């Protein structure tokens, strides 16, 4: 197994700031906007962006929820292992809100398909956007594309992209892992 650094801590930081600015361009004061971090790994990025927008860009408290998509996945009973769920925590109504899905890696698009179904249990959003830190090009199984992306990556199928966050993995970095 070998791994290559795609983004180091500084580059991650630059990408985060760029994403924050792009979000401000589209959402201005964020009054009707809510962030939904996709469990498990999208929540770190969502928390990061929320903190960044609130501290560095002085925005008022941005609503953030966690959405677990396990029970909505299309590969139930297609895996050897039982799919294990994570916590869903959405303490607000998404009815008529602009929802931004936040996930770390966009690969086949199936997670986002599940998230689109799952979010309907919490109301009917006025629109939904997708923000992903790493967009793996040419690997989509479904017609789903991000509205905001940190970095586009060409990775072949046996390669894996891992996004590390300081609060969970001890460093900010993005690796390309080859088996």
């Amino acid at each position, binding site marked *: 197994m070998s791994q290559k650094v795609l983004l180091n801590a500084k580059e991650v930081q630059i990408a985060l700031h760029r994403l924050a600015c792009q979000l401000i361009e589209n959402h201005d004061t964020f009054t009707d906007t809510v962030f939904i971090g996709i469990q498990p790994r999208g929540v770190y990025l969502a928390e990061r962006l929320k903190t960044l927008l609130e501290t560095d860009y002085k925005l008022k408290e941005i609503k953030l929820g966690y959405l677990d998509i396990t*029970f*909505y996945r299309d590969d*139930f*009973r297609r895996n050897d*292992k039982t*799919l294990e769920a*994570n916590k*869903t925590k959405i303490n607000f109504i998404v009815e008529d809100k602009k929802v931004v899905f936040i996930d770390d890696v966009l690969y086949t698009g199936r997670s986002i398909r599940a998230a689109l179904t799952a979010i*309907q*249990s919490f109301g009917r959003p006025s629109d939904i956007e997708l923000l992903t830190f790493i967009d793996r090009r040419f690997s989509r199984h479904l017609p789903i594309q991000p509205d905001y992306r940190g970095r586009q990556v060409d990775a072949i199928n046996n390669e894996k992209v891992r996004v590390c966050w300081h609060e969970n993995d001890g460093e900010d970095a993005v690796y390309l892992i080859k088996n």
Partner: protein
Amino acid sequence: MSELSVNHLLGIKYINEDDIQLIFKTADHFKEVINRSIKKVPSLRDITIANLFFENSTRTRLSFELAEKRLSADIINFSASSSSVKKGETLIDTVNNILSMKVDMVVMRHPNPGAGVFLSKHINASIVNAGDGAHEHPTQALLDCYSIREKLGDVAGKKVVIVGDILHSRVALSNIFALKKLGASVKVCGPKTLLPKYIDSLGVGVETNLRKALQWCDVANMLRVQHERMDINYFPTTREYTQQFGLNKTMLDSLDKEIVVMHPGPINRGVEITSDVADSKQAIILDQVQNGVAIRMAVIYLLASKINRDEN
């Protein structure tokens, strides 16, 4: 660990502590799901479940049915009173006929102890025991322990007394197994005629004085007196039973500490528990019912994920 060690839930006896903890963890997520405005998830779209009730049930059947519907499974219901069982069909034939209609899972209540175990050896489907005679009622024990965990934070180290008709109670046996596996101390309390002869072999204490038992415990699980299973008189009168083993508000308030009161339902108000106790703050009877749906969703979800797609 993310998978059950078994393919059927036949009794608490056959599962281990890790299984129970996995079921609890999964039930936590489903509890959140059933409190949403849209309470349904599509996980089990391609699973068909048969609810076979060879014995009367209201709560358990509704709870299972709701759990299955919340998971989007297709379900068929069957009750013995309106079926060919009356015409002399055997259990295996009845179930095999149902399974030939492409059913993946069977939830069964049966008056004979061991009916689930027997069936699991002869048919090719996942089986959930919803009560077999005086043997086991695993989902009830799971939801009872889950409710204790929710109310008191943990089951380990807690003292639980099970009061009433232990002899005829599948709830008591499953509860004893589950509580012991999770590290609680258990005592049973009731008239000696309603305590099984070899109760000591289960590793539980015996107390025949209700007040002493309640002083000792953190949780009291009050069982129903099962008149329908009593072919002889086990105590002189219901009134005498109530005087000795019925829980009333005066006794509850006179205890040194606030205990949690549970009841698996249906309640005989004024027999094993008075109305003011059943409706008091300390009673978590309705929480138990709500948790029942989450627990059954977790059990069905975890078992269904082990059904092999290729076999269907």
